């Protein structure tokens, strides 16, 4: 009897959280799924009166037929496949280095953590300024106000002060590869702090005695890293990779931060669009059905990738 009373109390304490979850998480999920299958669903149309929507896959077909769809898929997957491994490896090396040094560690840790607490739109604008070339570019006599700090550095190092010696990273006429390069640098840099934090925590919980044993076994540093640190850290690495992929598939703000709502350089708007970008586009067109369908497609992709990740990590992660 005491037990059931206790249980009742437990439910009572959980109630506020459950109510909030039901209103703000469970109900929207149900709603999203149902909207996705109601063809041409729109909040405005519905508000207009007694409208019924046909049930079907029309929204999905509409999304897939969107002119940006393939490009958005390509961008999203490409960014994921490049930035997740690169940022994970960099974070691992930085974490190992941070773990090895004594003084200055706290200070460096703080510096590496700063991107995490900074607004990503703000960082995006700073990146845009760094890679920007301000002025008129093209066949006319160049009147350039600023090359941006990145080009300044390149010009300084190359020692070539010719006005035409600059790389067009993000301005009108820039190439897709350069756009992606800037995006990759930004996303990797932005993804580092969280990964470093997790990996550093993992490193600090590894028993120091394994390293003493490795010393006794005369293991060179590189082997210590690959044969001991990485395997012992593998649960953390798996966690960082899986959350990295999930975050990567939801990439959006970083592109808005650098390229603005155009999702690309002025001459080719939408070139850097992503899946989440498509969802926003649909919402702006008041096409909630389409947005829901796009969200479900994204959810499906993330689900599949995460399942693959889990499957791989089962084989690779020790313990």
């Amino acid at each position, binding site marked *: 009897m005491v037990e059931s009373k206790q249980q009742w109390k437990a439910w009572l304490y959980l109630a506020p959280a459950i109510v909030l979850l039901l209103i703000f998480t469970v109900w929207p999920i149900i709603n999203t799924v149902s909207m996705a299958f109601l063809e041409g669903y729109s909040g405005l149309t519905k508000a207009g009166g007694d409208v019924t929507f046909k049930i079907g896959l029309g929204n999905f077909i509409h999304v897939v037929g969107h002119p940006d769809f393939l490009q958005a898929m390509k961008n999203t997957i490409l960014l994921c496949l490049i930035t997740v491994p690169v940022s994970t490896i960099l974070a691992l090396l930085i974490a190992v280095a941070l773990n090895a040094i004594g003084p200055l560690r706290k200070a460096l840790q703080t510096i590496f953590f700063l991107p995490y607490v900074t607004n990503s739109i703000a960082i995006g604008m700073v990146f845009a300024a760094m890679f920007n070339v301000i002025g008129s570019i093209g066949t006319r006599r160049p009147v350039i106000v600023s090359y941006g700090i990145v080009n300044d550095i390149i010009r300084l190092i190359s020692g070539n002060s010719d006005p035409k010696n600059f790389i067009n990273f993000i301005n009108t006429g820039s190439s897709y590869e350069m756009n992606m390069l800037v995006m990759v640098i930004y996303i990797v840099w932005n993804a580092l702090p969280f990964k470093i934090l997790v990996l550093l925590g993992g490193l600090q919980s590894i028993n120091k005695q*394994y390293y*003493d*044993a490795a010393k*006794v*076994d005369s293991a060179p540093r590189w*082997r210590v890293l690959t*044969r001991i640190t990485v395997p012992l850290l593998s649960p953390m690495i798996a966690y960082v990779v899986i959350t990295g992929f999930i975050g990567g598939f939801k990439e959006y703000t970083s592109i808005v931060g650098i390229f603005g709502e155009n999702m690309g350089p002025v001459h080719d708007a939408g070139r850097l669009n992503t899946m989440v970008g498509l969802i926003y586009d649909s919402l702006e067109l008041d096409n909630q059905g389409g947005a829901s369908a796009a969200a479900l497609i994204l959810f499906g992709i993330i689900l599949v990738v995460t399942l693959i990740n889990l499957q791989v990590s089962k084989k690779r992660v020790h313990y």
Partner: protein
Amino acid sequence: MKIVLKNLTKIFPSRNKKSNDEVIAVNNFDFEIPDGKLIGLLGPSGCGKSTTLYMISGLQKPTSGQIFFGEDDVTELSTEKRGIGLVFQNYALYPHMTVKQNILFPLQNLRGEDKMPKEKMLEQAYHAAKLVQIEELMDRKPSELSGGQQQRVAIARALVKMPRVLLLDEPLSNLDARLRLQTREEIRRIQKETGITTVFVTHDQEEAMSISDMIVVMKLGVVQQIGEPQNVYDSPANLFVAKFLGTPPINVFEGEVKEGKLLIGGAVVLDVNGVEDQPVTVGIRPEGFILDEQGPLHCRLSNVEVMGRDVSIVSTHEHSLNPIIRSIINADHKVNIGGEEVCYSLKSHKVFLFNRDTEERIYF
């Protein structure tokens, strides 16, 4: 490979810079470990025995003093280059590697001339595994092994590269009593088979006595006595060593020397010619008592424990410094004890006298 320790000292600085509570873990350790011998470093916890071992391994740097392997000064040499094998107290097997990978790991790190082809490595790994009898466990992970098996894997990993020196840090502390007995014999056997100079650390005197060629008894960083186990047991240098070695422990009495006689509680118990008159602490090994109705040492009998081979007699005496006196009497002839009192005479070579203040041995 002999190991020479010269004035080896390790001081751990105090944590708090203002206070001056630095710890002298090892104080001026001077010893030459002969080639191919098994040496037991023995002492209570905090006596500096593990620190000494880790200084030999190179994992800890001495504050002063030198370490030689043979003729080579290795004091400044890093652990990686010393070519030692070390078995850690909790084994430190790499949890993500199989037994085979664990044993192969030191071989894979060999460089230069020592580098060997894969088949040779495997052969050597299996040879080491055979030595410690774990060939059938090669594909298991450490978490799937018992403590004793893990310990053997740790020994195999330490031995596989044929180290110049094998170091063992309390290797038996995680094993149950029976396995401990069995494993210590095995360590002895492996050491004899390989002839590798071996140093092992323990706080268990029985363990050290049973397998070591020589034991080093330490207390608070200072070496108390070095010698063959039997010699140290038979002739302890001071009260600490006498108390530390032997089970059951030595019985300690307050006594007095007067005119060449040893008195305990006023009764003359032994002739000790050549000792100046002075108050002394008397140590008597449990096997140093002889049941004797006319014996001079009268104790109050509290208990008789029959253990088959021996009889252990528990008694008390007002001048005993221990709460009880335990004597061990051979059970060959029938022991007939009754009443309230038990009387002993003493075997003089089992009786040790110590200075009351310095606790140093007084020889007679």
